[in-house]
Each structure stands twice: as structure tokens, then as C-alpha cells.
């Protein structure tokens, strides 16, 4: 399914169009035998990790559901549209899904700015949108009737980072962040959290996500005598920072967020295992790709993608698609956008087996994923050391 040939896609679309045509007043994108889901996100460019790769994970669930006969007799069809991580293109992609592909719902949203760009369009169309990766709070707070997220929102992560530092007894807390859209949507709520607690960060350093070297940043943080560093950065910059901090003999409590959740992989990226001794991160999943508990998924994954390696991004897709499938199931035989919305808003304590905590949405709160599991490496094995659940 993954690399459907162009011809097959065309046939599928044509077939879909013919089937979708019949007279009975059915919801857009739904027939007696199919339900069409639009996958929105970056398929090309650097954002593909938060788009294509997550979609690949979701595809496993959708294909497995189809193998088992579908949901209420309906097979899931997916249509992908590329937002190239750019707002203008994201609007085109959303419009294409809504008006041309006529999908029932959208499952996607990677790069935050692209999602923010497409947001008014999707909101106005009253089409269900389950966000799988975009963390910007403005997308789901205040809630729009049809828009939900299974991603840990930026503010939840940022508040957790600060709280964790305080729990660890840190007295002089500093921040190192990248200030692209991803970083800033986390940095801002983090600074608000600082203000609320009446704390001033002792240093506030910046680095680019693709940095090859972080010695200046490490030296400045060391000079500021920071005993804990909150890291709002990508794995590459984090690897450079941990390595260079170790190099200059600086050993703060390093506190990451979900982008740094795969500690075993991060260790390899750092290249210096000792540099990881005081590193903690939030994981948005309960198990890492290489854990024994994930064996069944690894097996399935290798059937669908024999040449690739299952990563956290794939797992996120699996977990998010599980939520979508569950809600489609609950929405029943007479599937409409309204029934999907209503069931999604009622989803309570749904355990995906993958996210650290249960998924709960309410009419007032569409940020359905709230549990941040703190992980660290203990004797080279990843261990959950604490869990913070943030209420609102």
C-alpha cells in the first residue's frame, strides 16, 4: 500500500468517485463499504518525519483493520496530501482534501505553522480533524467543535519540564531552545510557566535545530552555573549539546521533551555514552521501539516496511490511528461527521497500549493526551522514572 503506483492511485480514486456517487444521502467520504480519511502533513522536505513517517505508522493500523474486515463493513481508504511544512501549501492541501478528494475526516498535522495556516479552512468546513503531531496550543485551545489532538500539546510539555526540574531539586534553572516555529510554540508557554512560579531562568541560550556544535552554549550555561537545563531542541542539537557539555566537564541535569524521548537512539547520536548520565526526557509513548513489549508491532512493521526501522515517529502514528479507529467504531453504522465528533468528545480513558496514559477528551477539552512519562537511562536500559499528568 505504501508505494501505491500512480496508476493504482488513479484507479482507486476513480473507483472511489464512482462508488461515492450513488444517491443515498450519505456523509461526505463515506459509503457502505468505505470511509475515506485524508492524511495531511509533510511528505517531502525536513518535516517528513512529522508527516510521512507518522502516516506510515498509521497506515499499519488502517491496513490491519481492513484485513479484519473494516469498521462496520467499511474499509478505510487513505489519501495523502503534502503540506511541505509551509502554511500556503498546507491551505492548498487542506482544500484539496476537503473539496477535491472529499474525505470524511482529516488525520494529520505535523509542522505547527503549516497546521495553523490550514486551521481556519478546516475549522470552517466542519470536518473532523484528529491532529497527530502538531503541538501548537492555539490549534486546540480554545477548542473548535471538530478539532482534536492526540499529541501532547506544547504547553503541557513545557510546564512538565519546569516541574520536573523543581522536583529534582534544581535551584538554578536555565533554558536552551531553538526558535523556529516548533521551538517557539514550546518556548513561549515555558516562559509563562517560569513567570507563574516566580522563577527567572539563570540563562536563556539559543541554538539551531541542525547545530553541529554547541560548545559556546555549553560554556555560557556553565558560566551561568545552571544546575538544570531545560532543552527545547531537536535530537541533533541535543546530541551536540550533551557531547560538548560533557567535553567541557559540565554536568547539569539535562531535561528534554518528547523529541528527545528515544534515549537509546539519542545515546548513539551523542556518541559518548557517559554524556547521557544525567539526561531525562518526556516520552509520549510507554515503550521504546526496541522494547520487548513492542515485539508484535516490530513484527507487523517489518511486514509492511521490510527495509526500514521502526522509530518513535512510526509508533506515534500507530497510537494515533488506534484512537481514530476506536472512535470510528463507536460512531457506529450510521457514520456522520457529527457522530464522529460526538463520540470523540466522549472518549474517556481509552488505553491505546502505547501512549503512557489513557486518552480522554471532553466537550470542553480537545487536548486528549495529557500524560507525560519521564524516562531516563538506567544501566543502558530506558526506565520510566516519573509521570506527570497535567490538568487544566
Amino acid at each position, binding site marked *: 500500500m505504501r508505494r501505491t503506483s500512480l496508476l493504482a492511485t488513479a484507479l482507486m480514486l476513480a473507483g472511489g468517485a464512482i462508488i461515492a456517487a450513488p444517491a443515498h444521502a450519505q456523509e461526505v467520504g463515506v459509503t457502505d463499504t468505505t470511509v475515506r480519511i485524508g492524511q495531511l502533513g509533510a511528505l517531502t*522536505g525536513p518535516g517528513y518525519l512529522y508527516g510521512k513517517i507518522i502516516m506510515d505508522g498509521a497506515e499499519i493500523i488502517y491496513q490491519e483493520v481492513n484485513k479484519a474486515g473494516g469498521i462496520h463493513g467499511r474499509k478505510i481508504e487513505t489519501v495523502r496530501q503534502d503540506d511541505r511544512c509551509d502554511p500556503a501549501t498546507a491551505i492548498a492541501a487542506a482544500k484539496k482534501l476537503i473539496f477535491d478528494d472529499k474525505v470524511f475526516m482529516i488525520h494529520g498535522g505535523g509542522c505547527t505553522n503549516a497546521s495553523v495556516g490550514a486551521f481556519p479552512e478546516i475549522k470552517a468546513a466542519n470536518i473532523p480533524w484528529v491532529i497527530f503531531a502538531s503541538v501548537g496550543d492555539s490549534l486546540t485551545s480554545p477548542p473548535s467543535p471538530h478539532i482534536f489532538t492526540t499529541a501532547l500539546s506544547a504547553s503541557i510539555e513545557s510546564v512538565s519540564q519546569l516541574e520536573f526540574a523543581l522536583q529534582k531539586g534544581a535551584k538554578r534553572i536555565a533554558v536552551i531552545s531553538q*526558535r523556529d516555529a516548533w521551538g517557539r510554540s514550546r518556548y513561549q508557554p515555558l516562559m509563562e510557566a517560569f513567570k507563574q512560579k516566580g522563577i527567572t531562568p539563570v540563562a536563556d541560550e*539559543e541554538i539551531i535545530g541542525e547545530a553541529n556544535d554547541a560548545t559556546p552554549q555549553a560554556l555560557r550555561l556553565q558560566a551561568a552555573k545552571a544546575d538544570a537545563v531545560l532543552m527545547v531542541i531537536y535530537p541533533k542539537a541535543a546530541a551536540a549539546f550533551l557531547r560538548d557539555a560533557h567535553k567541557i566537564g559540565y554536568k547539569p541535569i539535562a531535561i528534554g521533551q518528547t523529541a528527545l524521548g528515544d534515549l537509546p537512539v539519542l545515546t548513539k*547520536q551523542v*556518541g559518548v*555514552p557517559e554524556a547521557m548520565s544525567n539526561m531525562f526526557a518526556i516520552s509520549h509513548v510507554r515503550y521504546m521501539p526496541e522494547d520487548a513489549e513492542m515485539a508484535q508491532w516490530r513484527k507487523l512493521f517489518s511486514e509492511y516496511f521490510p*527495509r526500514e526501522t521502526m522509530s518513535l515517529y512510526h509508533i506515534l502514528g500507530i497510537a494515533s490511528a488506534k484512537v481514530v479507529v476506536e472512535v470510528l467504531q463507536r460512531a457506529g453504522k450510521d457514520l456522520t461527521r457529527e457522530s464522529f465528533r460526538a463520540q470523540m468528545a466522549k472518549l474517556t480513558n481509552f488505553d491505546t497500549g502505547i501512549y503512557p496514559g489513557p486518552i480522554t477528551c471532553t466537550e470542553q477539552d480537545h487536548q486528549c493526551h495529557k500524560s507525560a512519562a519521564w524516562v531516563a537511562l538506567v544501566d543502558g536500559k530506558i526506565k520510566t522514572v516519573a509521570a506527570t499528568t497535567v490538568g487544566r
Partner: protein
Amino acid sequence: MLGYLITSGLALGALYALVAIGIVIVFKSTGAINLAQGELFMLGGFFAFMFHVQMGYPYIPSLLLAVVASFFIGALTYQFAFRPLMKAGLVSVLLASIAVSFLLKGVARNIWGGVGDYIPFPPMITASAINLNGFIVLPQQLVAFGASIALMLLIVAYFKFTRSGKWLQAIADNVKAATLVGIRVGALHRLAFALGAASAGAAAVLMAPLTLLYPDIGFNLFIKAFAAAVLGGLHSIAGAVIGGLIVGLVEALVAGYVGSKFQDVSAFVVIMLVLVFIPRGIMGGKAMRKV
């Protein structure tokens, strides 16, 4: 603090210098800028990853194979993308090289994009930091630094002492005269693009343990390396190395003393100033425009 900033600036600069060398090799001999030079670096790294990690070949042969493979990719891109355009003008070659960079990125993303986000590559020697007289350095950075100097000397020697190197120099100086004395200019242009790609491949295998591998690594590296090459005068291999080291040092010192938010932009500010005030680059060299 200054000591660490200087060493890390030099290590960063060695990375830019290694990529800049490839840009200069191509420009020096053909007058073209290959904007896909960063993607050739990326591909070289992934080749090494494929041979060593995915196919399990031993370390050194894998690295050599990666350089050889890069060489052929360079020759191939010349043959199919640049050769017909060498007479059409710089703008066409620039755009063609952009097209090639999209192609290479797309191919790499579809082959290796599903393996991980920033793919680690095992270092040549032990990963752990070593203590040199109270000063801690990473062995891989030393290796990379030494290797970039060695690579530079190798290429300078190539241009000075080998026949094809001298010919490359000759066509750079006067393509018409070179044609008249029977030098096959097309073949030499191909060689220049191939050598440029091979040096990008060599840079990648040296640097991959530090830079990590991902399909989009090329652009950011290219733009800093391009700045370095222009700083060095675009015609000189040694100039490219010095230019690279300067860009690296500026980034480290600005980040350390002025503020880390200025790190990424400092190179561009320097390049704007240099171009406006010393347009021939620090290694001087030839007039960039004779009228």
C-alpha cells in the same frame, strides 16, 4: 573559555572547509557553482552508512567505497544534467544543480528516510573524549581536522603535480587555448565535477559521526561552505580551508561572547560585509570581473 571556543570553532570550520573544497574544485576548473554540493555530501555519508552499517562491510573499505561511489555520482550528474548546459550560462547551471539537489534529496529520503531521524554513524576511533593536558577534546574532531588538512594538501598536490590536474588548471585559465592545444575540455569538466563530488563524499565519511546523517543535511552545510569558499576567493583550495575556518571561528566566538542567538546569522553578516568591502575574498587572487 576562549580555548574551548577556538577549538570548537576550528572543528566546525573544518567541516565547512571540507565542503567548501568541493565547491572550489568545481568552480576553479569549470566556472560553475554546483548547488548540489551539500546533497553530494549527504549522499556520500549515506553510501558509507549503507556499506558499513546496512551491508556490514568493514570500516575502511566502506569509506573508500563511499568516496568512489560519490565520484561516479558526480560524473553522472555532470553527464546528464550539466554537460549540455555548460555553454548556456551560469543561471542555467545553477538551476540545473538545484534540480539535481531536489532529485538527490528525494532519492535519499525514499531510500533511507524510514531508518530514523538523525542517523548515527560509528566514529573512526573511540568515541569518548580524551584529556590532553587538562584540555578535553573529542578524538573524532581531531581526526576530522587533520584529515581536512590532509585532503587539502592532497588536492593542492593533485593540481600541481599530475597531468590531469595541470590540465584542469589550464582549462580554468583559458578554455579556448586549452581546446586549441587539443585538451578534451568536456572530459576534464566531467572530471572536475566528479572530483568535487568525491571530495564531498570524503568530507561526509570523515564528518558523519559528528554531523549525523539525514536527507536534509546538505543545504545548511552548503550555504556556510559557499560563504567560506567566497571568503577564500573561490579559486583557491587553501583559501577555501582558511575561509571555512574563519566562518567556524566567527560562529563560535560570536555565540560565545555576543550571544548564542546570533550564532547562525553571524556567517551571513560577515559574508555581506566581506563582499561589499573586499569583494575579491581574503585570498585575493584574480579580479572577479574584468571589463
